[in-house]
């Protein structure tokens, strides 16, 4: 079991790189985006399901058993993702999943010259707005931009954008919350 963090980093990089290459070979950019979304879900699922996480990292079970569980639990996911996760579980590297996810995102920019911008709105974007966001983000980040659109019916309005771990929050909810806080804290707020 390597304890050197550089070795672990290199191993995680191999998994991430394999995942990017396999997804692109299987279905181009759409497949890469699908793998990215599923990877995010699996990381989150893995954090909130301790029993599954313990099973997949427990050396008391054989590698084959751990791989079989991956295949069954994540059967709806893309096959290339299931394969890579299976190998990770089999080799006892499932703990590296968050790191693989991070490196996967880095490799998108490095290998494909693409930055994924997650855009959350209440209603779907129109083409004009899509174009404006893409142009602005491309100018700021210096790569091609891929919009990953999400609709959140709980939002009042506005837009939230996430890219490279940074969030630009221009949602009505946040603006109202900020206004509420300012009005409450300003002298005269308790009148």
């Amino acid at each position: 079991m390597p304890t050197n963090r550089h070795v672990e980093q290199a191993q995680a990089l191999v998994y991430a790189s394999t995942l990017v290459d396999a997804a692109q070979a299987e279905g181009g950019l759409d497949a890469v985006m699908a793998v990215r979304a599923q990877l995010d879900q699996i990381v989150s699922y893995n954090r909130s399901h301790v029993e599954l996480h313990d099973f997949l990292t427990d050396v008391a079970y054989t590698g084959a058993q751990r791989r079989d569980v991956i295949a069954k639990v994540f059967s709806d996911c893309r096959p290339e993702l299931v394969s890579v996760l299976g190998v990770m579980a089999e080799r006892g590297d499932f703990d590296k999943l968050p790191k693989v996810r991070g490196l996967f995102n880095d490799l998108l920019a490095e290998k494909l010259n693409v930055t994924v911008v997650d855009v959350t709105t209440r209603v779907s974007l129109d083409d004009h707005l899509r174009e404006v966001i893409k142009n602005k983000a491309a100018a700021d980040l210096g790569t091609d931009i891929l919009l990953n659109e999400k609709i959140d019916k709980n939002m009042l309005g506005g837009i939230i954008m996430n890219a490279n771990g940074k969030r630009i929050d221009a949602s009505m909810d946040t603006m109202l919350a900020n206004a509420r806080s300012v009005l409450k804290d300003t002298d005269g707020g308790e009148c």
Partner: protein
Amino acid sequence: MLVTEITAQSIDDALRKQLDSLDTSVESREVGTVIQVGDGIARIDGLKDAMAGELLEFTSSNGQTVYGMAQNLEEDEVGAVLLGDVTAIKENDQVKTTGRLVEIPVGPEMCGRVVNALGMPIDGKGPIHTVATRPVEFKAPGVISRQPVHEPMQTGILAVDSMIPIGRGQRELIIGDRQTGKTAIGIDAIINQKNEDMICIYVAIGQKASTVAGIYETLLKHGAMDYTIIVSATAADAAPLQFLAPMTGAAIGEYFVYNGKDGKPANAQNPGQHVLAIYDDLSKQAVAYRQMSLTLRRPPGREAYPGDIFYLHSRLLERAVKMSDEYGAGSLTALPIIETQAGDVGAYIPTNVISITDGQIFLQTDLFFQGQRPAINVGISVSRVGGSAQTKAMKQVAGTLRLDLAAYRELQAFTQFGSDLDKSTMQQLNRGARMTELLKQGRYTPMPFWEQALAIYTGNQGYLDDVAVEDVVRFRTELLDFVRASHKKVFEDLRSVGKWTDEIKAEANEAIEAFKKQFAPTASAE
């Protein structure tokens, strides 16, 4: 702002003021996800650009906002301590950076108030309308902006001011076992600052809330809350708050040191203010920090404290300062308190803090139960820099007191079982017993330096040699009352001249002799 009369104009003004402060710009912030939470600690995925000590904003699934402080910046994750409702935060909740270090509100508006470790009022007296803030962690001033300690910080306690004098800007440790009167020295020192133009900050760390309430009542009763701020992180508060509390106290104090009374930066024309900060006690802060560090998975060292426990205390106490005249000559005097276990000053935290501070006042349980209160062991108590801050009048009479008492104790130990003693030895033992008795002092009865000086002068000149030991304290009290009433000039001259002249000595002798004639020894003492 409480509006007593609501008019259309006042409503219009309030609304305009509030609307003017609205900021509709959009901020870009880094966002991470909580991957693990427990014991008041959260581990966060993301936040690659977070700063050490940065304020983090956690948003729980039900929309509640809880703040935290970034502590461990690791390769893949950030370890943070939660500063609010720890139960509200769950795995997968979002965390945002704020771009600010943890800071607290500060200002003169805080005087008379009790605040928590985040500077929020907890005394039920409503919000504190401060205009300034300061970071809780702040680098201590460098060599150039300081000057040596040279002004006295009178505690009003005879034993301290005479033998272990403290100067403004000094760091003097108060150390001793439980129930030896450590807090009492701090409280007496605060009470003595009345009319001294000194802001006092009492930081209660890991104490019972009832104890803090008692201290508040005591200070209020003695009129000391007008110039005092209490920072309280009780035993019920989370470890991070107990860890932060002393730094919060220091930050509040620094505002007064670095700013003049007009709130503008201190300089030669706009003098800074003087502050006395009491950290009660740093042993509990160390324990809270140990808990935090262990839950953050930092490697444990000696007594399971983390490796940087020395730096935690040294950087806090280094913030005590006497600023140079160019920077306004303000001062922050620190009186940290350390509780020892069974008198063991060689334990890890006591030795650390002893080595950091400019001296220590050592309190002993056996002295306390022998009735020697304050129970200061003058043999091992020391003030390394306070001597230069002592008033000349006190230095003249108390210069050799510490050594005389040490010699007395040594002699006492040798002669404990002997009966045949020569006259000079008997004389030395007599004098020592009376001088030791003279240093006894009740709580909340601080004495100004001129009264202290006269009391010691009386002992030095042998006026107490024929007074029974059990009468010494009464003699001192009645003598001071007598001089205050009928020989006021002695105190006035001592106060104005600041030293013993032949003339003052003659006046004092006359007053003491006059009093002695009328002093009635108690029947049991005769």
